[in-house]
């Protein structure tokens, strides 16, 4: 079984509302999600089981359009070689812990890779919603507490050439919508994710994973190095050898 989820950079988030903070009050309806969590496990034994989160290269969920795109685009064109973060929900397949911080009007989710900070804007607090022409790399995420779970809906994504799977060149469109449900089962964090994108998925893509409290020190800073990100490109022969050589921008 699989599902999926989303993120928004703090910078982008702060452009939509003030960045103040406040304490949150736990109640029966609000699960205590605060803390650092191990990366998700699909279950079935072993500490490293992420297969349920992987949208496969020839997955039956893929549309013909997705397959055509996969076959046409080359690996070197993926934004990951420019230090671009993994999109959601594909990000969850990266074996890094993540941190959740619950505030009274929002929830912050920090991922242990790529310096990702997503802001979940809780409903009912007057947060400004995106204008019709505003799209975001991690989408716009709004959330609510419901039946003891945090339910997050994220949409308004930019088109992303690695948006559904960065390893198999499966993109996502502006129509991607990710719903995440965070709940607790004892001390275990349960994450259920569902992704729809009717351009590239025939049906919703869903998964369910569990995480445990992670007592190891939180690695707060990622600091992607552009040269290291591109190092492996040296070993990739061009898929389109007759095209002019790609000259990547040096952002530094």
């Amino acid at each position, binding site marked *: 079984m699989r599902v999926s989820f989303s993120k928004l950079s703090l910078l982008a988030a702060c452009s939509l509302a003030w960045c103040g903070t406040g304490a949150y009050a736990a109640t029966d309806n609000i699960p205590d999600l605060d803390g650092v969590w191990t990366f998700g496990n699909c279950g079935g034994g072993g500490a490293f089981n992420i297969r349920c989160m992987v949208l496969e290269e020839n997955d039956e969920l893929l549309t013909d359009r997705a397959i055509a795109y996969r076959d046409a685009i080359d690996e070197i064109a993926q934004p990951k070689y420019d230090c671009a973060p993994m999109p959601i929900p594909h990000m969850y397949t990266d074996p890094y812990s993540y941190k959740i911080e619950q505030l009274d009007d929002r929830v912050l989710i920090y991922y242990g*890779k790529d310096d990702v900070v997503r802001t979940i804007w809780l409903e009912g607090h007057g947060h400004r919603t995106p204008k019709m022409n505003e799209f975001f790399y991690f989408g716009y995420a709004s959330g609510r507490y419901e039946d003891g779970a945090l339910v997050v809906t994220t949409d308004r994504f930019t088109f992303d050439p690695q948006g559904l799977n960065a390893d198999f060149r499966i993109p996502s469109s502006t129509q991607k919508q990710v719903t995440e449900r965070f709940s607790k089962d004892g001390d275990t964090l349960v994450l259920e994710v569902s992704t729809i994108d009717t351009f590239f998925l025939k049906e919703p893509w869903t998964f369910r994973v569990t995480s445990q409290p992670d007592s190891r020190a939180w690695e707060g800073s*990622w600091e*992607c*190095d552009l040269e290291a990100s591109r*190092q492996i490109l040296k*070993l990739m*022969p061009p898929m389109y050898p007759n095209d002019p050589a790609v000259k990547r921008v040096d952002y530094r």
Partner: protein
Amino acid sequence: MKSIKLVPALLSFVALVSTTVYAHHSTRGIYHDDQIKEVTGVVKAWRFINPHPYLTIDVEEDGEIREYDVSFGGAAVVHLQRRGYTDATFSVGETIIVAGHPARAAGVYGLLIEGQVGDPKREDGSPVVQAGGSMF
């Protein structure tokens, strides 16, 4: 700088870097997954940095010096730290022995340390890191 050996993947090498890291900097199709090659070379650069630390070594091969990129797959700094690697694990100019899956493309040289491949060794055969725990 000296020997190069092709070793059948199913022989030798204990699974020190035991779990294949799920690498978004995709290694699919880049390396010969069914081969392990061992080289002895001189460290040219060691960059202990995200997203993926990498090592560059000069290897004498077929009468010329070839620059090999040595990759630890999808492992990041935090993963290698848990195995005992630091930014001082390798020194420029030192001779080391590295085994890994060789790169497929012609005219470029690379090794992937992943799966059943062990950590690099010093010239005397001792491991560059003491066997650590899981990278995860």
